[in-house]
């Protein structure tokens, strides 16, 4: 297999060709290195092997969510449904595998069913987008609320705790120093990358972000691909919800709280454009690491909890600015 030429800078405003590999693609990895080195210099706890493993482990769930959201962002759409979809999947899996609430012991099948439920919710977002022509911002916000409602219904006042062996092993068992959860995240990134590079779904998602109308002119029906992308994203969120459940040994309605904005931040910090057509899974993976290194580093160097969010916000803005500034153009469109 050969792969397409490396992505180079797209001039959104001027469709003239630009030469050379863009700095924008090397910016985020550079930022990651700079932030990592800075924290390492500031704190010896930070640069320990154990802490690096810890960063990878804590990044796992966000990485999986970000894999899903990246496909949506590549199309130029947005997805705010992660909290609801993850919550529904978390409760669903907790009630399907061995647990304290009912006699179910479906194991892996239970996990798959929970992911299927999540994919179905994602599919609803996509269908509402293409059939009702409602912007994804709203369809996914709506589906998130629906997911939380379903999760609350299933929760029904009593905390479901799981005793399933497979799930219990994910956060605990280690391979080469990293937990199974982390390996699952790696697998997701790899699968996401393969989908993005080598499948029609991935390439079309990318193309939809580049020039949706051209696909239609070429006789491609984009609607099914859009629905498929939201479904795929839902499946990733579902898996992430299952992962949270395995970490907590319990199904929480709030399992996905905050993951919507965190994942978008990670993707954008990694160089995926909210306007679509640029970036991808590897970019997002770098973005996830930037966010997680920041979060961890701030605790390690002992920044006051009050300030942590603020410092993180500042650094994210600075990181994006540093990545964007070198290729700033006069008549650039910044949304």
């Amino acid at each position, binding site marked *: 297999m050969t792969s*397409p030429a490396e992505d180079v800078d*797209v001039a959104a405003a001027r469709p003239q060709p630009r030469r050379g590999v863009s700095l924008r693609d090397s910016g985020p990895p550079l930022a990651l290195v700079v932030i990592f080195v800075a924290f390492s210099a500031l704190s010896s706890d930070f640069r320990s092997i154990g802490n690096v493993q810890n960063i990878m482990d804590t990044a796992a769930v966000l990485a999986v969510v970000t894999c899903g959201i990246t496909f949506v962002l590549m199309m130029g759409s947005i997805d705010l449904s992660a909290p609801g979809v993850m919550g529904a999947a978390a409760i669903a899996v907790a009630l399907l595998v061995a647990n304290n609430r009912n006699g179910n012991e479906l194991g892996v099948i239970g996990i798959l069913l929970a992911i299927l439920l999540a994919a179905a919710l994602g599919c609803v977002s996509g269908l509402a987008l293409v059939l009702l022509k409602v912007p994804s911002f709203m369809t996914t916000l709506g589906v998130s609320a629906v997911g939380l409602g379903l999760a609350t219904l299933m929760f029904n006042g009593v905390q479901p705790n799981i005793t399933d062996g497979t799930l219990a092993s994910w956060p605990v068992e280690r391979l080469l120093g990293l937990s199974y959860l982390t390996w699952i995240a790696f697998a997701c990134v790899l699968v996401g990358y393969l989908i993005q590079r080598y499948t*029609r779904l991935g390439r079309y998602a*990318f193309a939809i972000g580049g*020039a949706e109308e051209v696909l239609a002119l070429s006789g491609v029906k984009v609607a099914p691909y859009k629905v498929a992308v939201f479904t795929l994203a839902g499946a990733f969120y579902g898996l992430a919800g299952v992962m949270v459940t395995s970490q907590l040994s319990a199904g929480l309605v709030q399992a996905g709280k905050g993951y919507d904005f965190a994942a978008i931040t990670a993707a954008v910090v990694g160089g995926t454009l909210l306007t679509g057509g640029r970036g991808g899974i590897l970019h997002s993976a770098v973005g996830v690491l930037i966010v997680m290194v920041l979060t961890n580093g701030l605790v390690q160097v002992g920044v006051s909890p009050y300030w942590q969010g603020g410092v993180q916000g500042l650094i994210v803005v600075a990181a994006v600015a540093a990545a964007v500034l070198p290729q700033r*153009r006069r008549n650039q469109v910044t949304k």
Partner: protein
Amino acid sequence: MIPPANPEIGQQPHPMVPALEVKNLVKHYPGVKALDGVDLVVRQNEVLGLAGENGAGKSTLLKALVGLVRPDSGEIWVRGEKVRLRSVVEAANHGIGMVFQEQSLVPNLTAAENIVLGSEGAGVRGGVYRWETMRKLAQEQLDKIGSDINPLARTDTLSFADRQMVEIAKVLRIEQRSQHPPVIILDEPTSVLESKEIETLFTQVRRLREFASVVFVSHRLDEVLDVCDRVSVLRGGQSVGEVATAGAAPADLHRMMIGSTGSDDHYHDQAYERSAEPLRPMLSIRGLSGKTFRDVDLEVAAGEIVGIVGVHGSGREDVCRALFGAEPTLAGEVTLDGKRLDLSSTRAAVAAGIGYVPAERKIEGMVGPMSVADNMTLTKQQSRCAGPIVMPKRQSSLVDRWIERLSIRTPHRGTQIQRLSGGNQQKVVLARWLVAGDIRLLLLDHPTRGLDIGARSEVYRLMRELADSGVATVLLADSLEEAIGMSDRIVVMSDGKATKHVPCPSGDKPTPLDLVKEMV
């Protein structure tokens, strides 16, 4: 999958049956009858020209032929069979494919993907890409038209001309879809190409004729006569006749297009008298450098039209943008009418009396969903305001006046500009700089791109009148002929540098060949 068709051995229909026939096609849009009973015959193995003024209905007709526009009534026959075309795919299955007026490639995909887009065939199996196969499929197409671009290059890294080749390579994929000889529609493919590229394209068109029918649209009538076997003329949504190209002159075609014996005031023929007074310097550029140009010196006097010529990548476009504050500069000094010019923003440029008409009309020139009126008064808000307050009456009468003066075809001043034909859109964009009457320097990047002869003449006349009233003009012309015809002086740019200044007084114009020698 789709059986690869070999045009030589495919069942050839009877040679007398037209490849495509359109009968009494009608299409209404709110306020306009875009097609008003059009008839058209495309014979097998011919290149049919389609001519008509801006807004005559050419693009609408062609879009109906590829299923993008649903006609209100009328019939379309393909090789003697009546068909209904409801989508691009259906049209492609009947062997009809189109290259659109505005380039339509996905910029962030590879050329190969664009070429096979929607008909990947063996390039995709079970939803999985087979890049090598896809590259080969694309390479085949590119070989057919003799293009040597890398199929795996990202499309937005290709030059405009190369992208046009990708479009043609792509449209030829319909051979794979239909057993029949294809009908290839080219809507203004040359308006963005340079002469060398146009020659390459024409070679391809002539080659296509061997096994296909071609419908070709261009506002450059000499081109139409050159490459076509026959020309059909549309006016106001109706077919008004056809011309065999052998022995016909552009003027004949033009007369048919406008329906009168209007004077053919094309730039070649016009004897244009300039006053002999010494010219007052208006724009003065010293040592201007930017990302893509270096050390450019240029003087433009009030009332002077200076053309800049150069091949793609010569940097001339960025010089214009830099003067308008839309592209950063690294060094140099620019004065306008003796005052140092602030190059930091487009705002400052507008305040200094500079106007700019960008080449990329759709993206940079107009705000599609806004009305004709709002587009026209967007820059010169003062023209429709009393103090800071907008006066709707003032705007409507001003706009209506300019709609009439420039013969802009629009149902209403309130119509969204994106609903106008390309030529009429361009006129609105030009009018934007004229409504206030306070322009001192006009930077025109391909201002006649996509305009019909009549509209072009209007733009030329307008440019000259503006020059007469003291406006300095920098022109990046559509063709060398246009540059020569319109300019008082020509500057040749190559590789980011202004290499040569060629005087171009009326009566003593250089030939295109003279310029080409300087350009390379």
